[in-house]
């Protein structure tokens, strides 16, 4: 238990009579990426705020970087870096001034501060924009500056609250690479929250699914995918009449009336696909689109969070 970067037992938090976190347990080994996954309002941000000393928990035994959150918050602060959901940069001053401000607050010497600032601006591709006010930065640049500021103090544990929310796909992939490099290059521990399943799948060593203030499941992406039953073949129709006749022919299939689609359980193997196709032919069903769906975190997520929305809607 000594190499846990973050250990939480029975973490509880409520606002008035609304329970946000209802006794969650977390164990994050050093040098790994841990992802807290959940829909909006699940309590992800509250968990980060508590673990990063921003707000106090109501109950729970919480240790971050080996220090007790309740009694030694200042020691925790010295070990962590936080990049919140909303950019934590000073928009009124330049990117470089933001970095130097962090250097001053970490009590680096002037020379060290300039050196670290130059290194990090270079590493995050911000050297050109260094002298411009942060308010003029794009979303992706602001997020990169945000992380660069977090790294000034060389934190051992980094909290990233929805680091790619609102970023375009390219910036998102850049951010993923940055996060991977943090762990492989600097050996830090990353605690990441996200509502994107592919992000957790892509980055995290371990994933906890947070739903309604409780951990619904925890494990590696592979372990979680094993929770849900196999994949399916999805048939989509454009003509409501064709859809109706198909639903009466294929009573075994589960229906999605809204998008005119049917789902037939399948493991996705060639043999099964062929037999499904034969069966469709003999039933006289002609789908406009056929897709093979292997189980992914989406299935886990919807199985665990009990959402009835179609997976397509959230992608």
């Amino acid at each position: 238990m000594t190499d846990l970067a973050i250990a939480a037992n029975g973490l509880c938090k409520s606002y008035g009579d609304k329970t946000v976190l209802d006794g969650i347990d977390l164990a994050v080994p050093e040098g790994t990426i841990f992802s807290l996954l959940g829909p909006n309002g699940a309590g992800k941000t509250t968990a980060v705020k508590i673990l990063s000393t921003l707000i106090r928990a109501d109950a729970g035994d919480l240790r971050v970087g080996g220090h007790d959150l309740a009694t030694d918050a200042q020691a925790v602060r010295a070990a962590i870096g936080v990049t919140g959901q909303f950019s934590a940069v000073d928009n009124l001053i330049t990117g470089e001034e933001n970095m130097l401000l962090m250097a001053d607050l970490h009590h680096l010497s002037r020379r060290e501060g300039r050196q670290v600032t130059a290194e990090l601006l270079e590493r995050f591709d911000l050297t050109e924009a260094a002298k411009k006010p942060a308010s003029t930065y794009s979303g992706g640049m602001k997020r990169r500056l945000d992380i660069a500021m977090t790294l000034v103090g060389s934190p051992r544990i980094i909290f990233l609250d929805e680091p790619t929310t609102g970023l375009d796909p390219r910036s998102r992939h850049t951010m993923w690479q940055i996060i991977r490099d943090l762990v492989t290059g600097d050996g830090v521990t990353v605690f990441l929250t996200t509502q994107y399943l592919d992000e957790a799948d892509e980055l995290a060593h371990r994933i906890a699914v947070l739903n309604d203030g409780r951990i619904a499941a925890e494990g590696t992406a592979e372990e979680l995918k094993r929770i849900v039953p196999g994949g399916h073949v999805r048939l989509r129709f454009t003509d409501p009449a064709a859809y109706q006749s198909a639903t009466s022919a294929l009573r075994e299939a589960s229906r999605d009336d809204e998008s005119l689609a049917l789902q037939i359980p399948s493991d996705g193997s060639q043999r099964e696909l062929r037999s499904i196709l034969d069966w469709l032919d003999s039933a006289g069903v002609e789908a406009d689109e056929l897709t093979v769906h292997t189980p992914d975190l989406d299935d886990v997520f919807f199985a665990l969070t009990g959402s009835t929305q179609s997976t397509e809607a959230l992608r």
Partner: protein
Amino acid sequence: MSSPLAPTRPTRISLAVRDSSTMLRRNLLHARRYPSLTLNLLLTPVMLLLLFVYIFGDAMSAGLGGGANRSDYIAYLVPGLLLMTIGSTTIGTAVSVSTDMTEGIIARFRTMAIHRGSVLIGHVIGSVLQCVMSVVLVGAVAVAIGFRSTGATPLEWIAAFGLITLFALALTWIAVGMGLVSPSAEAASNNAMPLIFLPLISSTFVPLHSMPGWFQPIAEYQPFTPAIETLRGLLLGTPIGHNGWLAVAWCVGLAILGYFWSASKFNSDPK
């Protein structure tokens, strides 16, 4: 990524001084980059000064009695307007504290191993410095249009300067508290209105004895009037009486009140 934290853990006091001066530098940088807010706030006292001297000057000086002329009225008006300048400048403080609190950067500061109060201390010292600068600027305009102190000794000048600084400190702490409880910059600006409204109902423009009897106690004992009468006494040699102690008591009281109010708001968990 060469450097970890400073090898020796600094003492609490040196940490406080160091982090507060970093925060002060940040606030002064803001003020230097965006001077328009401060300058806009200076406009009110300067406009009032010119308005009351050049437009209403003759009527107002008649109100002073004893055959006073316009230059007598300038002398009467300036001490109050200097203190009004402080009230006006601290509205800017309330706005900038409130704006700051809505920014993510404050959440970052709260998760760093820095002196916790440094954010507010930086704002307070920055604000007091801005107040003093503003008073000097408005004072320069006053001198340009003919204000002269009458035989103030160096000691009285020092006391006047001390009073201005103390008054600025008191209003600043109140403004910081107003900024902390205001959800937005607009709300902060509205909540801080008393800081500019109170000098209007003080002895800034007209003597207390010219006001209706029922209103005189209100005007006499609100925080601005004792400070104005004291400053008037120091610069112009008018009698100060009990106003000196009253002014200092108001300043110290407001500063302490504002300090504890702000500290408790700042230390409570953010939403």
